[in-house]
């Protein structure tokens, strides 16, 4: 979808910000770009909507060089969310959201409908908020508007440059959850720059870890965690990753011992001892089997953090939880796994546990 081919960027003052950079962002994925400050994340991102031009190399969107698009149209179809939020202070919320649709000559009716829809999507009542000025909103609310302003004209691509780093921790988590939810509904291609590893892990389908203008490792979160390319990656993950922030699919038991196909027991004569997860042919979750009896049981979404998952488990005496990704069983979480994982994360130094 978006492809960097051997891109370099040397600024006028001689700073080599990006060095021989090739990367493909897949259609509909959230790619989080992370790395230490000054490693070239912003530069990379701004080259996509041509706020910065590469020194050499080319960038393609849908196999077409971005220079061959009209620059306005390229930008209208590329939503842009800034760290500084940058809502226009002299316009109402409604006007801020309508800017790109208006430039794209949408009808008034369409524009209104779209902005109402978007406001509702992020939980802000249009009848209240549309007429307000940005300064009347909290920081978290403002950046929600920042996000839906970028979404307004239904672009294929959304670029976000550390969009939540100026927000308080609570708003930040809320907005991260919103983005995840939105992404499930709208399936945009999102390039999300962050310097916060937790955020990168939580949001990225894949993570692109950069250092000094180069990609050090590109892969799914669990690949980075389980297979760090080098010490730098390990340090970067280790330093920032609280064990509680990991998503459950990283620690779930992928062993299929406890998973059985319902079709194997057409007469319903299931094993009468033990706990099993029943699935159908395409691995979709059916039911839980406890000592021969089928029950609905609790399930966990694969991208839930361990912390959130334990809250769910707390008031349940179920010993085993199926981990689901789009209804398919991708693993099983047990208390034993959680203990094992947490112990492996505990730092023990000179006999002192931290």
């Amino acid at each position: 979808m978006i492809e960097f081919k051997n891109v370099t960027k040397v600024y006028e003052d001689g700073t080599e910000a990006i060095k021989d950079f090739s990367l493909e962002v897949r259609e509909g994925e959230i790619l989080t770009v992370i790395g230490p400050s000054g490693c070239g994340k912003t530069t990379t991102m701004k080259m996509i909507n041509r706020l910065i031009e590469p020194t050499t190399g080319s960038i393609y969107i849908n196999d077409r060089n971005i220079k061959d698009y009209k620059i306005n149209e390229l930008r209208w179809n590329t939503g842009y969310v800034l760290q500084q939020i940058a809502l226009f202070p002299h316009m109402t919320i409604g006007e801020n959201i309508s800017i790109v649709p208006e430039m794209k000559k949408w009808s008034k009716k369409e524009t209104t409908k779209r902005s109402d829809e978007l406001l509702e999507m992020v939980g802000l009542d249009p009848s209240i908020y549309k007429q307000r000025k940005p300064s009347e909103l909290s920081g978290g609310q403002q950046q929600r508007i920042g996000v839906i302003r970028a979404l307004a004209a239904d672009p294929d691509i959304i670029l976000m440059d550390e969009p939540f780093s100026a927000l308080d921790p609570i708003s930040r988590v809320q907005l991260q959850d919103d983005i995840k939810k939105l992404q499930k509904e709208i399936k945009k291609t999102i390039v999300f720059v962050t310097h916060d590893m937790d955020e990168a892990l939580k949001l990225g389908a894949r993570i692109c870890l950069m250092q000094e203008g180069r990609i050090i490792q590109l892969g799914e979160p669990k690949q980075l965690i389980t297979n760090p390319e080098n010490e730098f990656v390990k340090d970067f993950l280790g330093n920032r990753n609280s064990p509680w922030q990991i998503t459950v699919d990283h620690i779930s038991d992928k062993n299929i011992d406890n998973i059985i196909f319902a079709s194997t027991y057409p007469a319903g004569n299931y094993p009468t001892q033990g706990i099993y997860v029943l699935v159908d042919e395409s691995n979709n979750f059916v039911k839980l089997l406890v000592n021969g009896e089928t029950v609905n049981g609790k399930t966990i979404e694969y991208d839930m953090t361990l912390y959130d998952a334990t809250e769910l488990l707390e008031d349940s005496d179920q010993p085993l939880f199926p981990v689901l990704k789009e209804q398919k069983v991708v693993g099983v979480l047990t208390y034993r796994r959680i203990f094992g994982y947490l112990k492996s994360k505990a730092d023990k130094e000179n006999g002192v546990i931290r």
Partner: protein
Amino acid sequence: MDEFITVFQNRQDMLLETTLEHLQISMVSLIIAIAIAVPLGLYLTRYPKAAEPVIGTSAVMQTIPSLAVLAFLIPFFGIGTTPAIIALVLYGLLPILRNTYTGIREVDPALKEAATGMGMNSIKRLTKVELPIAMPVIMAGIRTSMVLIVGTTTIAALIGAGGLGEVILLGLDRGADINLILLGAIPAALLAIFLDLILRVFERMSKKAGIKSFIAMLVVAVLIVVSPFMFNGSKQPDLVIGGKQGSEPEILINMYKLLIEEELDVNVVLEPNLGKTAFLFRALQQGSIDIYPEFTGTAIVTHLEDQAESNNAWEVYEQARQGMKEVYGMEFLEPMEFNNTYAVATTEEMAMQYNLQEIGDLKQIENEITAGFTLEFNDRYDGYVGMREVYDLNIADIKTMEPGIRQNALSNGEVDVIDAYATDSYMIELNLVTLDDPENLFPPYQGAPLMRQDTLEEYPELEAILNQLSGKITDDEMRQMNYQVDYEDRSANDVAREYLINEGLLDN
């Protein structure tokens, strides 16, 4: 207070007219200044390298005294509204230019980037984002400029552009008449407040209705203000006669007009009360006036930068006439009788107390007295410089001041002697005594019509017509006529007509 109300009632018509003129000149200047400075400021934000020199230049222009700017402009644009507006525009540029530039530059870079990133082109970004955000700053610049312009417009009266400055100058000329000065100054201040209010309303409306409607409103304002000028220009005068500040020149030029229009079928327009001598002379050279009464002494000393070779009035006139012809190609027709020379004047009591009769008599009290001289007199050979040399005077304390306020300073006792013009009307009103000049230090100052040669070639009859006044009007007659205008509030035209009829120069 009562006095002020009386003055107000007497001058209502003049006040209304000058206020409207003032408003018009200020508005046109302001609008032109906006029309130049805002686009220029915007342009500079896109080419910041040029910004410093351009803004620096406009800052320098603002430091030049307004009188100097006017003097500089007369050779190119003459007198009247045009040079006044040009000068005012130059004055008004800086605040608008600087505020537009900084206002736009100070728009948060993140907002500019957001606008660009959303796909706005440069113009859209400017009109939708940068201008509205910078608007309060730009408007503040416009308001500053407006106050500056409305204030400086009072100077425009010096070059015949009209406005409330006329009232103020008249007040200054009439011995710093506080009531008249206030009558000019208060409406000028009210005008500034009123325009400030309008601009605020303008700003609020533009905030609601957007930049496009702001520009539309600006265009409408321009049309409203400029249209009277367009219709005004239809009737071109054949001859323009100018006159210096004060009642005497005004009476004289009214006589010229009456005499000329009696004989010739031409349209004569008067420009009385023009500022400094240099302004008039330049305007005559440049052609925006055709005739003005000048003094023989001034022609020699100021324009020819020479000294009178004689103290015989006719010889001085001949010297002036020939000089003006050779150096400037100008015709100096024959002078009238009265001699408005410099005089040194003091109060009757003073003269009695010290038995003062001649200028030289001041020697005995030179260490005790204070003199109030005009800047010009203090600096001229046929003034105080010559007094020191010829009469060996060295007055301990000299205060220099505007002509109009000398007589008050004298009657208040702040100064003991002043320089005066022999025919000034306050000589009568204040009972002043002039000291004799036995050494003939002050050359004769006889008034005579000065014009360019081409004017006389076009209207050869002028010589005969204006020479009818040759040798007419004595010192006393002139003083009396000045008195009637200054203190009895008669119009210069009436006084001039009356004199001409009495002399049989004009039919009733």
